[in-house]
């Protein structure tokens, strides 16, 4: 405790005493000089004042030690502690003659205050360094964006990812710096506009985001963004990217593997089919009815091999979100006729009949011919399998508003209700079908994906013992004509999960 009170009273006493002593001694000397030593009054007065003054000055000098010296020491201590004047040494309180205890305590207190401030300053810096290291050590790019999506903060990983380009322009727009493409209909920009209008605190994630780096290589990420409206610390939009390149690239590799396998399988299939056809043509006249029948069976078996290989390939692509369709303007009547023609032989060999019943003016549709060939193929195959010997499979088509609905109907064994709900699942085959027919369980799964990729729907109605109808819808060309690229001969492309792509630009 600073003994301020005693210092104050003591210094006051000393002050008062020294003044009194000066006054008294002046008087005494004057008196003594004037009356005891009998000197003239003026001389006595002068002598008194002179000697009194001397005594007074001596006292003043002493008072300096008592009063001003402590002030000097305190000021020095403060200035040293403030670190503004680093050339000032810490004071040595022992040099102050008076109030040493009080001064030492005062100087110590000043130093204490300073060191506390130092410590808290160091601690803040440590915490700041810790946070900064934490953010930079995070193995994912982290960015903070401002209201106009300009980049306000980026961590070391983000900087490394963009090969330092991120630093070159201050306040760059995120979209300019990061060349992103999204595999969904809902892009980052879409989300931001929505959220800035109506959101408070929102988080959104995107899968399989494609980032094209400055050197034109491509990496795949998952992305998450958090919007914090009017955040007090200025962190309004936080963006993080998770590198899933290995995973997605591996998936791409898997698809490549299946692709290559399909390619290998198709080679021999091509040759088999080809020579079967040659034999049918050239040996045909020499074969008896039974042998001709064998040839037909070989023919459709080879054709089915092709279908199976295609199904496997498509299913693999679909699983890895790489199944794409190319929708083009087609006349539906002509297309249906061609496809059904192709399947007539297959039906015949299995002793089923195919009939095609179409109204006069079916419109143009937007369809991927190959994709829809496979859909119809799968539905017709199913109908053939489940119908009775000699049975009829009917294919119809009708316009319904903006869509064309096509149905494939058989009058066969029908499908159990419990089974119907699972039909479009991958690998699903009911126990019944497993007994009597073959199939990979992929056909309907794929058909659903392809139809839905067209923006249509697929459904099934069945009654056990009576038969089954599969139906699907396709958009009329007119209803989607506005989405079609005017330059590129009426073609739009759409992935099974909604990538919209023109001229190999993904939707941004």
């Amino acid at each position, binding site marked *: 405790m600073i003994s301020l009170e005693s210092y104050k009273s003591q210094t006051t006493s000393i002050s008062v005493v020294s003044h009194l002593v000066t006054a008294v001694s002046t008087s005494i000397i004057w008196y003594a000089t004037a009356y005891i030593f009998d000197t003239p009054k003026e001389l006595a007065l002068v002598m008194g004042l002179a000697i009194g003054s001397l005594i007074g000055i001596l006292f003043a000098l002493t008072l300096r030690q008592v009063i001003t010296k402590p002030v000097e020491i305190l000021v020095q201590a403060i200035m040293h502690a403030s670190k503004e004047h680093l050339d000032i040494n810490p004071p040595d309180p022992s040099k102050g003659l008076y109030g040493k205890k009080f001064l030492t305590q005062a100087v110590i207190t000043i130093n204490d205050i300073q060191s506390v401030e130092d410590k808290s300053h160091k601690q803040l810096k440590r915490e700041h360094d810790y946070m900064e290291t934490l953010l930079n050590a995070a193995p994912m790019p982290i960015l903070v964006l401002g209201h106009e999506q300009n980049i306000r903060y980026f961590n070391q990983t983000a900087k490394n990812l963009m090969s330092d380009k991120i630093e070159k322009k201050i306040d760059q727009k995120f979209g300019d710096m990061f060349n992103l493409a999204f595999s969904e209909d809902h892009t980052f920009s879409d989300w931001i506009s929505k959220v800035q209008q109506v959101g408070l605190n929102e988080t959104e994630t995107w899968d399989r985001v494609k980032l094209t780096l400055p050197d034109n290589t491509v990496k795949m990420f998952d992305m998450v963004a958090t919007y914090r409206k009017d955040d007090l610390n200025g962190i309004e939009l936080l963006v993080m990217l998770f590198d899933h390149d290995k995973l997605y690239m591996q998936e791409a590799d898997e698809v490549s593997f299946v*692709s290559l396998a*399909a*390619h290998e399988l*198709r*080679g021999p*299939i*091509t*040759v088999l*089919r*080809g*020579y079967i*056809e*040659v034999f049918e*043509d050239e040996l045909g006249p020499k074969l008896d009815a039974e042998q001709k029948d064998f040839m037909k069976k070989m023919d459709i078996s080879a054709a089915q091999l*092709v279908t199976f*290989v295609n199904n496997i*390939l498509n299913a693999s*692509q679909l699983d890895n979100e*790489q199944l*794409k369709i190319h929708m083009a303007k087609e006349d539906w009547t002509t*297309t249906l006729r*061609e*496809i059904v023609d*192709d399947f007539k032989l297959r039906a015949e060999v299995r002793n089923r009949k195919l009939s095609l019943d179409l109204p006069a003016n079916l419109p143009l549709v937007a369809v991927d*011919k*190959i994709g829809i*060939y496979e859909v119809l193929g799968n539905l017709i195959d199913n109908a053939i399998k489940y119908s009775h010997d000699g049975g009829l499979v009917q294919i119809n088509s009708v316009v319904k508003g903006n869509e064309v609905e096509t149905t494939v109907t058989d009058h066969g064994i029908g499908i159990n209700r419990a089974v119907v709900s699972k039909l479009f699942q991958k690998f699903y085959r009911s126990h019944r079908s497993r007994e009597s027919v073959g199939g990979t369980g992929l056909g309907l799964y794929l058909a659903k994906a392809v139809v839905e990729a067209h923006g249509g729907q697929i459904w099934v109605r069945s009654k056990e013992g009576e038969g089954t109808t599969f139906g699907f819808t396709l958009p009329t060309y007119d209803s989607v004509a506005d989405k079609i690229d005017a330059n590129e001969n009426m073609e739009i*492309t759409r992935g099974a999960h909604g990538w919209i*792509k023109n001229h*190999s630009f993904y939707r941004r």
Partner: protein
Amino acid sequence: MAGLKTILFIEDDRLISELYARALSKAGYSVKQVVTGPNGLKEAKTGKYDLILLDIMIPDITGMDVLKELRGKDGSGMPNTKIVITTNLSQDDDSRAALEAQADGYLVKADITPKKLVAIVKQIEESGNFKQPAKEKII
């Protein structure tokens, strides 16, 4: 394209090339089979052929490169020769688009029997273009 007479078949799988060449010869066309890319390119450049059937997966040089060489940078090379790509691969979108841009057609071999191929070639001969049938990927 009247008078389509000569066909060059660049294909490394001999079983397949013989299968198709036989059917085309029987239909009256003159067919030359070449097994490798570089030889195929050399032969193609002689300009003797009205139609080139070009396999994408050939040794030493990709079918894509051959196509680029023949059509040139602006795609106007060898205007009197039709080039149809044949493949058993399932092409990714970008490759397919690139191919379709410079070739006159694109066939998946497993879907094309010899008779079908002859029909397609006849179609090219008669009209110079063809409509895409449901199965084959032809522009």
